[in-house]
């Protein structure tokens, strides 16, 4: 079943369809939100609010358009709302946010070093470039989908991905050679 069909069912109150949509998009939404939210906790709060908005207002989704760019816009709007919110959370550095996502036991020092290097490299990029390169290379989105989600022309997305890769390569230095 396509996302659009699931969204149509959600609009009719189908809780199982909603859970299916959540399962499909939760991971990517959390990763994208972590790139732009103040904290990891804020990222999860934003994703949760975005998904509950979908549950309450699924009928506002235009089924003739792709679901995931629309949903990512809802997520990014939720992140912005949290940034403006009354809680006034401070914006911690991206490397702290990413470092807070513990990779689990058994990771070695080299992996930790690589993780920290990548976090610092990502922190030097603007939000849009971080999102563009992550959505393209990590999530497998098309340039068009990313352009729709971010509200910019496709050419801008291509440029953002290109420049973000170059910046990451320059910042990762020796680690980048290992990735080649």
């Amino acid at each position: 079943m396509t996302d659009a069909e699931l969204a149509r069912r959600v609009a009719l109150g189908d809780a199982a369809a909603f859970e299916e949509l959540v399962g499909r998009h939760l991971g990517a939404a959390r990763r994208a939100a972590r790139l732009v939210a103040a904290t990891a906790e804020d990222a999860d709060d934003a994703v949760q609010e975005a998904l509950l908005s979908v549950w309450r207002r699924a009928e506002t989704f235009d089924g003739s358009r792709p679901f995931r760019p629309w949903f990512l816009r809802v997520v990014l709007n939720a992140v912005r709302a949290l940034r403006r919110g009354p809680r006034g959370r401070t914006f911690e550095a991206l490397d702290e946010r990413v470092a807070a996502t513990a990779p689990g036991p058994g990771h070695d020092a080299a992996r930790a070093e690589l993780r920290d290097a990548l976090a610092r490299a990502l922190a030097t990029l603007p939000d849009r470039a971080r999102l563009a390169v992550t959505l393209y290379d990590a999530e497998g989105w098309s340039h068009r989908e990313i352009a729709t989600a971010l509200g910019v022309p496709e050419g801008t997305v291509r440029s953002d991905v290109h420049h973000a890769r170059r910046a990451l390569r320059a910042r990762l230095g020796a680690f980048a050679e290992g990735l080649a």
Partner: protein
Amino acid sequence: MTDEPDARDDALGRLLRQHLDAGDDDALAARIAARARATPQRPRADELLARWAPVGVAAAAALALAGAALTAAGLRERAATAALADVSRPAGVPRAVHDALTRAGGGGALLLPVLEDR
């Protein structure tokens, strides 16, 4: 890493996913599902219509009744005015002349008895 604009950089993609993965998606998904079950959806247009239809019908009926009452009152007032005009019009003065003089002002009406005397 790759410079090809349309090629995926799989190595970088894997690295980014590892770094950004929060883990435990299932727990968050369960929390969201539980909140959704406790959250009413916004009513759809047809539900809203069904909910407000009796109120709409009642309002329309009230408006129709009020309109009918106003129309009836207007008709009664017009009939009374016409009857009064007939009573106040001196004998022998044509209605058209009387109406024209009345519209022209009170002075015209005052002259009617003079006209009548002629």
